[in-house]
């Protein structure tokens, strides 16, 4: 490797990593947290078959799962100003990623709720708990245990998908890399470098998923 290329890589590393830490990760964390709230609420409403709200949830999930994420970003960032709603790049990305991820995760959580044996709800009611108490104390914790691996998957996918926000001028890792590349033109090395940083982030999250599964899994382990 010639020394110019090495210099570029070393020099660019913090310039890519810092937007990763200050933009990519916060965008992921904020949007995923909001998505979880949406997902659990939408899944519970559908599980309990709350009239009207169930239909609204279905419509929402249908739209956000059925259209490309990039199109959603463009509609909100480039389209909305046409009707007088201008949103800065980062908040626009937060809104779109939250809604998009919320739609997918709502289905994950709903499936997990439905996988809890119906006897658990009946046992809760017969033990003197209300429907809501049974949901909160018995059904939801079991469903979240089931949903944990697929939700972790979604989170890891989302870290990478935030690179799409580059298209609406959010200076996250990919856009930061593009900016450096525009100056030095070393696309192969620089894009591999940013790819490796994404890989690093995903690896840490995968490891956290394992730790989390171990903790949550306590009640499933046979033996002792």
């Amino acid at each position: 490797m010639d020394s110019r290329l090495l210099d570029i890589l070393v020099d660019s590393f913090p310039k890519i990593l810092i937007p990763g830490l200050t933009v990519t990760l916060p965008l992921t964390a904020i949007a995923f947290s909001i998505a979880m709230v949406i997902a659990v609420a939408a899944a519970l409403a559908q599980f309990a078959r709350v009239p009207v709200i169930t239909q609204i949830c279905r419509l929402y999930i249908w739209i956000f799962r059925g259209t490309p994420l990039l199109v959603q970003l463009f509609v909100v960032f480039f389209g909305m100003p046409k009707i007088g709603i201008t949103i800065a790049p980062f908040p626009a990305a937060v809104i779109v990623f939250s809604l998009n991820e919320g739609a997918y995760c709502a289905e994950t959580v709903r499936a997990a709720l439905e996988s809890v044996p119906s006897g658990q709800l009946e046992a809760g009611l017969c033990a003197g708990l209300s429907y809501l108490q049974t949901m909160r104390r018995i059904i939801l914790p079991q469903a979240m245990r089931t949903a944990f691996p697929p939700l972790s998957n979604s989170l890891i996918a989302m870290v990478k998908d935030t690179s799409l926000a580059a298209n609406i001028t959010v200076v996250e890792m990919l856009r930061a890399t593009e900016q450096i590349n525009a100056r030095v033109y070393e696309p192969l090395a620089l894009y591999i470098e940013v790819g490796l940083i994404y890989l690093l982030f995903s690896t840490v999250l995968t490891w956290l998923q394992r730790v989390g599964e171990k903790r949550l899994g306590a009640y499933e382990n046979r033996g002792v």
Partner: protein
Amino acid sequence: MLLRVENVHKSFGALEVLRGVELSVDKGDVVAILGPSGSGKTTLLRCVNFLERADEGILTFDGERFDLARMSKRDAARLRKKTAFVFQSYNLFLNKTALENVTEGLITGRRIPKGSAVDAARRALDKVGMLDRADHYPSQLSGGQQQRTAIARAIAAQPEIVYFDEPTSALDPELTGEVLSVMRQLAEEGMTMLVVTHELGFARTVSSQVVFMEGGVVVEAGPSRQIFEAPRQARTRAFLQTDQA
């Protein structure tokens, strides 16, 4: 009289499962419900504890009358706090230890302070011989241990009646005995119990009353001695004979 149901009707689609069932339970009674598979025994218990909504029927509980077809959620919840249900498949809360399974209904459901709830739960677990397994999760317990824990969960809040739906039929024969002996002990202590069972030996020796159901109606009911020794209906006689053979 603690509990009385009259004229209970329930259909699933075109299938008429209960066709005017009538039954009563006095305080301290152990009533066994016998009958062939598909006769509607489980459905009856589920209607009585509102897990299934009857199409028609009157429930009298502790002097209060309710229309089973129009039971409000509030009344259902209130009555459920005075009763308990032991399921064929145990249905222990899978995310809770044996102790937590028992305390959950006390602390969350009945707002009993944690300290006294834990004391009551430990007494109940002790009674069913599960105190040494209090910290185990259901997946770490045998079927018999799970069912005994479920019985502890049922009795901890001192219900006025406990409903049992074939509490031993998911168990191996060796494990059946440990559950039946716990139930026998409860009966001796005067617990009011309504028990759907295929264990004729248990019904004969423990229950004070027997109700024989077939085709969604009560064919015959009476003191268990009379039903076993001198059944009046031919159907009852036939059932007791074939089942004992």
